[in-house]
């Protein structure tokens, strides 16, 4: 079991806490959401909080009114995707002694468990480098943690939730992603948890705009690659996304969604493609026998795709000048693999690299066409496909720049895969 660690710890807690199960009315909580009069404020909360963070006085001043609509701890936002579950957890650091005493035992244990570990079970991981410290949310200051685990380990997670009597905390679990729908009944039956389901694209857009506005210290949230067409001089540079609209937002998860964002509330899904991160990993597993994304990337980094792909120069001996196609451009992905001899001489690393290049370039070219059709010049790529995947990011940066003759700019965000979960958390705190 992936979440073995929980089980052991849970046993005594479980016994202790069972009697305290004293359901407060669900209605109350939902009422709180639906009757929130402060709709406008909620939707622009992202910006407000970032200003507030530096001024405690203002925060205290507003705290009374905020307190009333503030949901009880713990604060989670969850995004259940096709491959990964993304979880953001807000750890309050301004807990008073009084609060500390009031805090029920299992809430405390969850807090300690999540914040004192960086790995959970076999597959759960906290991305420590992404942690946002000293963040003020809803008048509370604390740290925002970013945790992920594979969707197929969700049953173990639910088991933990059950063992920890998570349901007794009467928190609303805001969840987005397809899994919020698919596993809704599992949450209910296995962990006695009621999910508040949220649209994944709403959450994504909200999360991106929030994180971009909130992060000011540390490495810049948004960055790009300078000199993308020159491998030797290509370097990562911070980018200030001051006036972000309009924006093409490309979310590369298992599949890909491409959104045109005109404001926080005005966006549309332009198109999507099924050739995404799941395709890369799936094909790599079949072709090389690897089993994780990290393994696949590691192999790709050592491979050579030109042994797998047929380039323009392989067909024309050089550039195809009549159509302005450079000799190095890929003419046929996996094209060399039509030949038996070449199939026998490639390495797994070459295949992994070619798969990566194929999927990445394809996303690049669909994105570029969408940008042209929508008349948008800035593209932000997010999603967990880009996690620790500089290879793809540089490829995308290159492709955007080269094929658009410098017209298009590819931008990336540090918290690449977590925006949906962040959006879900924001929904908990500031229902729209």
């Amino acid at each position, binding site marked *: 079991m992936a979440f073995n660690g929980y089980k052991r710890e849970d046993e005594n807690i479980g016994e202790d806490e069972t009697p305290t199960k004293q359901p407060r009315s669900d209605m109350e909580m939902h009422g709180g959401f639906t009757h929130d009069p402060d709709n406008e404020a909620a939707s622009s909360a992202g910006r407000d909080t970032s200003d507030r963070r530096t001024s405690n006085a203002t925060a205290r001043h507003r705290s009374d009114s905020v307190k009333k609509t503030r949901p009880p701890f713990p604060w989670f936002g969850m995004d259940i995707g096709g*491959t990964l579950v993304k979880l953001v957890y807000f750890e309050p650091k301004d807990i008073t002694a009084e609060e500390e005493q009031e805090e029920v035992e299992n809430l405390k244990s969850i807090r300690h468990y999540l914040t004192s570990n960086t790995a959970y079970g076999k597959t759960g991981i906290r991305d420590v480098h992404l942690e946002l410290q000293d963040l003020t949310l809803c008048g509370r200051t604390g740290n925002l943690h970013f945790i992920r685990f594979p969707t197929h380990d969700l049953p173990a997670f639910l088991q933990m939730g059950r063992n920890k009597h998570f349901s007794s905390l009467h928190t609303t679990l805001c969840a987005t992603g397809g899994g919020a729908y698919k*596993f809704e009944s599992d949450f209910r039956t296995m962990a006695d948890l009621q999910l508040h389901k949220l649209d994944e694209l709403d959450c994504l857009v909200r999360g991106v705009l929030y994180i971009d506005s909130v992060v000011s210290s540390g490495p810049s949230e948004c960055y790009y690659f300078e000199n993308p067409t020159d491998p030797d001089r290509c370097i990562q540079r911070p980018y200030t996304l001051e006036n972000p609209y309009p924006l093409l937002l490309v979310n590369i998860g298992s599949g890909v969604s491409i959104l045109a964002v005109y404001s926080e509330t005005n966006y549309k899904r332009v198109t999507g493609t*099924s050739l995404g991160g799941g395709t890369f990993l799936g094909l790599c597993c*079949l072709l090389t026998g690897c089993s994780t994304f990290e393994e696949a990337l590691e192999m790709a980094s050592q491979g050579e795709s030109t042994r797998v792909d047929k380039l323009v120069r392989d067909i024309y001996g050089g550039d195809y000048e009549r159509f302005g196609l450079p000799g190095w451009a890929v003419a*046929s992905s*996996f094209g060399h*693999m039509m030949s038996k001899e070449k199939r026998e001489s490639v390495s797994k690393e070459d*295949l992994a690299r070619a798969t990566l290049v194929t999927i990445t370039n*394809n996303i690049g070219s669909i994105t570029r066409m969408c940008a042209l059709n929508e008349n948008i010049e800035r593209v932000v790529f997010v999603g967990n496909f880009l996690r620790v995947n500089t290879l793809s990011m540089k490829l995308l940066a290159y492709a955007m720049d080269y094929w658009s003759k410098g017209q298009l700019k590819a931008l990336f965000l540090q918290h690449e895969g977590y925006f949906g979960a962040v959006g879900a958390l924001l929904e908990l705190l500031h229902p729209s």
Partner: protein
Amino acid sequence: MAECGGLHSGSRRHTMDKSITLPPDEIFRNLENAKRFAIDIGGSLTKLAYYSTVQHKVAKVRSFDHTAKEATSDELYEITMQEEVTARLHFIKFENAYIETCLDFVRDHLVNTDTKVIKATGGGAHKFKELIERKLGLRVDKEDEMTCLIKGCNFVLRNIPHEAFVYAKHADSEFRFQTTQPDIFPYLLVNIGSGVSIVKVESEDKFERIGGSSIGGGTFWGLGALLTKTKRFDELLQLASKGQHTSVDMLVKDIYGGSYGSLGLTGDLIASSFGKSATADKGGFSKEDMAKSLLHMISNDIGQLACLYAKLHSLSRVYFGGFFIRGHPVTMHTITYSINFFTKGEVQALFLRHEGYLGAIGAFLKGAEEDNPNQYSWGENYAGSSGLMSVSPDMNPMQRARSGTFDMLEMDRLERKLVNLPLLQDASSYIPDTVDLTEDALAREYWLYCFEEALDGVVKRALASQPDIPEAAERAEKFRQKYRHKLQTLRHQPFAYGSLTVRSLLDTREHCLNEFNFPDPYSKIKQRENDAALKYYQKAVQSLEELSWEERQFALVRGVLAGNVFDWGAKAVSDVLESDPEFGFEQAKRQLEERPWLVDSYDEWFERLKGPPHKCALFFVDNSGVDIILGVMPFVRELLSRGTEVVLASNSSPALNDVTNGELQILTESIAAMDPVIRAALGEDRLTLVQSGSSSPCLDLSRLDKVLAMVVRERKTDLVIIEGMGRAIHTNYYAMLSCESLKMAVIKNSWLADRLGGKLFSVVFKYEVPAAGIDSPALTPS
């Protein structure tokens, strides 16, 4: 065949394949005087193109000089068989494995050619350059692949009606052919070879590669071979057609448990291609499932990109080609699905019947530029072309036969440039044929049966037309076999030559007859009947003159209709005619249905006649003999007397017993000799004879002689008369014209009569005034 192994270290496979023998009559035809060779060598198929001239017999009529000496016979004209030379384009497609055999064959049969160069294109042109030069002794001159492709595409779109089709896997007919557009530009060509090229074509010479993708046929093949250990492209497609992609792909419902309602994404949609293969047990997938998933992934991706480019450039006509498509139902289906999905049905994926030949046609055209082939109209020769083969294994038992290994396209240069009738209300939506037999299974069944039944009679007739030629029997037998084979092919693959129609069945028969040098089986019958009818002309005119104006108008219409009963093409009638050659005009009138007719707008026509005369009438005539002489001519005479100019349009070459332009010239002259009205009209140029450009018993108003179109325009034609079952019922029954029109026919087929709700010898008299016409009293608000 001469063995010349050992030249190539890698030619073992070729040598082995040399055991096949090529029947010269069937594969590389007319090589003797072939020239302007072109070759397109792809990854697996080679296409060879050449131009040749075909010598065949044509029937000509020539007037006897009756003034010079006493007529030696009663006959008005003599029929002579002449040799005529026409230009033909040959395209042959075969597997690369046969290339050496084929080149040897070509060299051995090439007799008198002054050709020095062979145009070559395609990826394999380079690889086989040396072999071609050595075998044929021709210099290989390479042409740009894309340029050839576009040139070829323009050529087929312009010259072959029903070239483009929409593929619908689950429809009654898988192939829905598109009508020829008056303007073929602009369009998008998505060529899916090993990679994908997306080309925007704006005119004959202006095209641009606006994009492409590296994920193409090579990706399917290469990745497919890695995943399934299956080497051949066709086998991969076979696997794919049997697979289930849902075990490999992550669907929307795998993530959502159902649909993603707010975005309208259904649960069955693929969210992530191969998305399940990362988590499942290794080796847990069948080859079929992986191949299917791969096929979907690639087709969807190409479809999506094509849509994005079509949208960006505001193009709605998107043609798909390349070896990935090449008639494979699986890929056509997945591409079609993808285009429908991404454009919500706004753009249709179009495929081409001769897609595989485009490169070869283009290369040929490049090499033939000095002949300027584009100044002519060309027509697909149904006799010499193999037609579209479905590759579906269970559908086509003949696929593995040699006819499948060697695929052919022959195109005849038409003597006349063909254009649209300027009087079509909307040329782009005009469909000549009334019933599409590819879609109407019942009708298809009947007509195929009907043509098969009639075959013996046609063979007999063909033989009788050449009584003194000894080898005619052998040719007639060959004709029988060829046409029967065509009918069989069409039974299995009704879509082989575009939409199957009564017209295409008739035309195919004419092509086959010509192929075996039976250019005009009815020449003697026509001659006899013309002579007989002429004798009765004056009497007929005289009796009409005696009638009151009102009676005469009706009698004239009945005359045309009764004349139209005389038709050797219709089975029901040919039985009667055969048994009783004296079957007279008067008898025919008695056979006619009494009014009200099945379709009867005689009253409207009669009212119209009371009004001002028409400026000019264009009359598409039908049969020889009684029909033209006793039916049509008196009618024409009346029009002329009213002050209406008349243009008589008749076939350029023979078809059944239809009167040809050549025959009509002679007939009209001899009528003029008897009739001052006709004589005067001819003299004053108020009666004009033109050829239709057609040699079919049916009529395609979008492919008519350029001269006819010019005359129609110059004379300000305001009435079109179409006569006969072939021209007014099988075709053009629903044709909308921009001027008044009259469609007259007698239904001489009981099955068709039944279908239309009538009976044998029912009459169709359809007088139509265009809806928007100001002179339409019915539509004028009162």
